[in-house]
């Protein structure tokens, strides 16, 4: 049984590990290990999701262009549509291009770090900002009302009981961080909002959006300052956040100036660099996407309000992604855009677009399922799931971009394939089963297994006293799974260990006869192997 499935099954009717029919360990210890693994699989998952909220309904058709439907597109919105030649083509994708303001994202795409999911919507979509936002935030049906957010419920599964008993040694950091102030409904858990608002740690009293007035020069101001300081300083997470934020970064990317989204992502990057275990970050695009008018510049339709929004988005993401690469954590972070709906196929008379339905969701990161090996029936091309949207020849105001995927399929994929939640947890949170999309790289389990020298070594080797001592090059704080195989490939040992530090020491239950064995160690979906000798 593949180990990944072993982790994800929530029932405990798991297969006991056996060597020629003899259990390697007593089943109770297997089960308790499994419980330990299950309970902490998500906790020690180590993956981070960054959500960029584009509030207002981003015009998907002017972001990701259906090059193969150009005539129809032009028929629908010639007053705002740029020349086809201005659209940036995407490598290995003849049907689709992106807005010229997003050249950085094109580069990311061509380097396998962008994934476009086409036509994301849900049945009976709402065209009201509030309602649609709530639907996306709560993962409800169009006719349902839920009082908690999908992220809130997910975090409640992963970290049950929050806030009671938190922070603790397993999870010393906030569960979710929003850079900004008002916490979004998506993070609302069953009892409490699971999020934490981080002001710019550079200046305690100012929030990125300048929402806090400076204290005036008066007794009122003095009392206010005192209260603000005490509030900030006594927050249980303050130390963790400050420490993470102040961790030196050997190299960091250059972020664009005057880009408020970049400013927010820069803070996120510093917190990730500092080792904060928070799995969810939420940042907000500073401008509205609700461009009912003047979406483009009349004289040059590659410019204008929408282009400006996309440029901000693209440059900020680019800097952020570079930063992650430089700090060596790009495999741990995936980002996604979010917008409550797309816009009408047909533009309006004010050089803008009105509320629509389906739109693309853009993912970015180094762990996406891109590259030739990833092409399946869902991905006609690398870097895109779904196909360029069908458009009627002469769209009317009642035509909408059709749904290809339900947004909850995206959530389902994220929860199971990125946040290490189980299928049953996912179904619970979403109130139903939604077919996953192949968003993320298949785990290294099926593919690559690395020689271990860079990650760990076994010493002494040959081992003595049936004890294996593993030394990790870097200090770890999480779970590793160790398997031992005979040279013929028979697995006789499979156990997960919590490692907090540089060493791991264990003995298989049965004495290993002299010979050569293979030790396989898995950490954060990466697999490493080395030979272990018993003399």
């Amino acid at each position, binding site marked *: 049984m593949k180990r990944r499935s072993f982790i994800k099954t929530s029932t405990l009717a798991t297969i006991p590990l056996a060597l020629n029919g003899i259990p390697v360990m007593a089943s109770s210890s297997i089960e308790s290990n499994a419980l330990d693994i299950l309970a902490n699989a998500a906790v020690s998952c180590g993956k981070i999701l960054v959500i960029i909220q584009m509030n207002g309904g981003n015009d998907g058709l002017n972001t990701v262009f259906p090059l193969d439907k150009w005539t129809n597109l032009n028929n629908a919105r010639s007053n705002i549509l740029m020349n086809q030649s201005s659209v940036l083509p995407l490598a290995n994708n003849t049907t689709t291009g992106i807005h010229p303001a997003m050249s950085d994202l094109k580069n990311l795409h061509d380097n396998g770090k962008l994934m476009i999911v086409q036509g994301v919507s849900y049945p009976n979509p709402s065209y009201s900002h*509030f309602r649609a936002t709530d639907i996306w935030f709560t993962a409800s049906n169009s006719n349902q009302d839920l*009082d908690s957010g999908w992220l809130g419920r997910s975090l409640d599964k992963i970290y049950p009981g929050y806030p009671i008993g938190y922070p603790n040694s397993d999870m010393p950091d906030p569960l979710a961080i929003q850079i900004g102030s008002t*916490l979004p409904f998506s993070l609302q858990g069953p009892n409490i909002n699971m999020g934490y608002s981080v002001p710019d740690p550079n200046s305690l009293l100012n929030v990125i959006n*300048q929402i806090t007035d400076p204290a005036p020069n008066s*007794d009122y101001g003095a009392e206010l*300052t005192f209260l603000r300081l005490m509030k900030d300083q006594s927050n249980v997470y303050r130390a963790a956040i400050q420490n993470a934020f102040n961790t030196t970064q050997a190299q960091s990317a250059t972020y664009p100036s005057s880009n408020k989204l970049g400013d927010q992502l820069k803070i996120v990057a510093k917190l990730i660099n500092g080792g904060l275990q928070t799995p969810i970050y939420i940042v907000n695009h500073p401008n*509205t996407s609700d461009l009912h008018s003047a979406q483009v510049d009349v004289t040059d339709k590659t410019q204008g309000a929408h282009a400006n929004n996309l440029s901000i988005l693209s440059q900020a993401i680019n800097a952020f992604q570079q930063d992650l690469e430089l700090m060596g954590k790009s495999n741990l972070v995936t980002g996604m855009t979010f917008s409550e709906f797309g816009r009408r196929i047909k533009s309006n008379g004010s050089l803008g677009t009105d509320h629509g339905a389906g739109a693309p969701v853009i993912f970015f990161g180094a762990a996406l399922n891109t590259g030739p090996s990833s092409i399946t029936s869902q991905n006609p091309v690398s870097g895109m799931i779904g196909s360029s949207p069908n458009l009627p020849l002469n769209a009317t105001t009642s035509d909408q971009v059709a749904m290809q995927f339900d947004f909850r399929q995206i959530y389902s994929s994220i929860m199971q394939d990125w946040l290490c939640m189980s299928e049953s947890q996912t179904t619970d949170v979403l109130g139903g089963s939604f077919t996953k999309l192949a968003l993320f790289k298949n785990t290294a389990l099926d593919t690559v297994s690395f020689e271990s020298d860079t990650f760990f070594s076994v010493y002494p080797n040959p081992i003595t006293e049936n004890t294996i001592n593993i030394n990790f090059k870097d200090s770890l704080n999480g779970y590793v799974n160790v398997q031992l195989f005979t040279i013929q490939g028979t697995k006789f040992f499979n156990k997960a260990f919590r490692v907090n530090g540089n060493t791991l020491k264990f003995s298989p239950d049965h004495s290993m006869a002299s010979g050569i064995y293979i030790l396989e160690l898995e950490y954060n979906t990466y697999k490493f192997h080395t030979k272990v000798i018993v003399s």
Partner: protein
Amino acid sequence: MSNTINRRNLFKSVLNKFKKNQDSGDPLFEKYSRKIFNGRRYQSNTKSKNSGFTDRVVPVSSGLSPYTGIWEKSQVLHLLRRTGYGFKKSDVDTLLALSMTNAVNAVLNVNTTPPSPPVNSYNNYSPDESSLPYGADWTTNPLPSGTNTTNSRRIDSLSQWNFGLACNQDLTIKEKMTWFWYHFIPVDFETVRTAPFSYAGSNSCRILYTYMKMFRDNPLGNFKTLIRTMATQPAMMYYLNNQANTKTSPDENFAREIMELFTLGKDPLSQYTEVDVVQAAKVLTGWRVVNLNTATPSTNFDNTYHETSNKQFSSFFNNTIINNAGASELDAFINMIFTKSQVVSEYICRRLYRYFVYYDIDATIESTIITPLAQTFVANNWEIAPVLDQLFKSQHFYDMANRGVYIKSPFDLVIGSLRTFNLNYTVADQTNFEAQYKVWNYYNNSISSGLEQTMGRIPNVSGWVAFYQNPSFHEYWINSNTTQKRFDFLNRIFNGYNLTYNLLTTRIEVDLIAFIQQFDPAICEDPDLLVAECIAYLLPIDLSATQKEQIKIQSLLSNQTTNSYWTSAWSLYLSNTSNTTYKNSVKTRLKSLLVTLTQLAEYQLM
């Protein structure tokens, strides 16, 4: 700076009493309290650092002449918040319709009818040991000796009942004034309960009730009379040991405190001596609480225990001699204290000022406010009402420099928020006494307690440090333990939770829609007006236009910039209030708005 060092040690030792796991003081508090920090960073340059407490950031020169400025909701809210706990919208409306003078008159027009006494709410889980029925008034029911469990239950119910009275207050100053007296001349319920005297153990509940009744039944009465009454209140007899004071072994506790804490104070003008304390103790000998185990305990004078010398006092008291005269020596003693009319009146007026206005009394305020107020006090023969009347009608009271400067005490924060947001602190079934008292208990004994203020409990006879402890005063409410709890309490009332007691579940959750519907319909539908109105009611000082805009965008508009999105959502709700989708759409945004506002540090000020 030796004064500072001594005060620092004093502050540390006081804090140590109610700090749980702190080694020496609260590190955050010591770092940020501006007075201890000498205000260098967090305050504009002030005058001399060698004053015992720092001067006002900006000097306040307004005096006691009557306020003639605008009378709008900002002023009304200021008056209500300072003289009560939180406010009710309806009370704001009532006072707005009056002139300032009549509004203050209304606030001071205390109904002296005593409220219904506390009852046996505990019978289901702790049967009354003298068989008093569930729901019956226990205040006239003496307990036989040994019934200490029931006595404890009754004392608990007394605290809870007091909390309930504060929650259910009218627009007058009655409850807040009751707690002024308690904070100033307190008895700790637990200390009295465990006082080692016969019958006290089983009957302390009734004398504690009587003690509180003394305050509540005439909160704006005569101060000198109050001191005389208090001096022989059974609870005080036990609390400060006058019950044990005999001629053969005088106990100076009460003698000292009655001068140091309750009348003369410790400011520079108060120069009573140790000799005075010794003599006072002798004067006070002979009083004993009797008939504790009957329906009417009282304190009587028993000459057997009385010290019969002539008591010679110091030059501070003009070398007064109180001749041996039995019971009447007490009256003579109190008269003697009150001849120091300037000392007494100024001390009390400072306490009143600190409780109702602001702790920071600089030299200007001392001369323009305290001194004349004290003169009013003396001129009115120690009646409290004229003093408060003058204070609450003054320019100084409504001066912007005094607005928003007061850190809400835990009672202000908890009871205030319960009332302002119309939470269900009154349970649906009023015959379910157990449930009702337990709801009050939850807020008094868990929530407010966690913030370090509980009805019925005081750290020591000086009361709650925030009201008197130089140099930080009300900043003492805010430490690393209590700060987050303040914000958590507020967060939770918006997320909602259930309190289930005796099979009755009470939902504690702010009804967001009902809250804003207290405002004009035209205000509710306009997001700019709605944000402004909520700020006007909930925060003491207005926020900048920029900040209001940000709050509106991020909460009411879901990060959009178009006002009509809120207006449409609200109109849609009004068109069909039973539609869950419409309702949730507005509720989510209202919750965001009100949570944002109440999570601001500004909400902790009034």
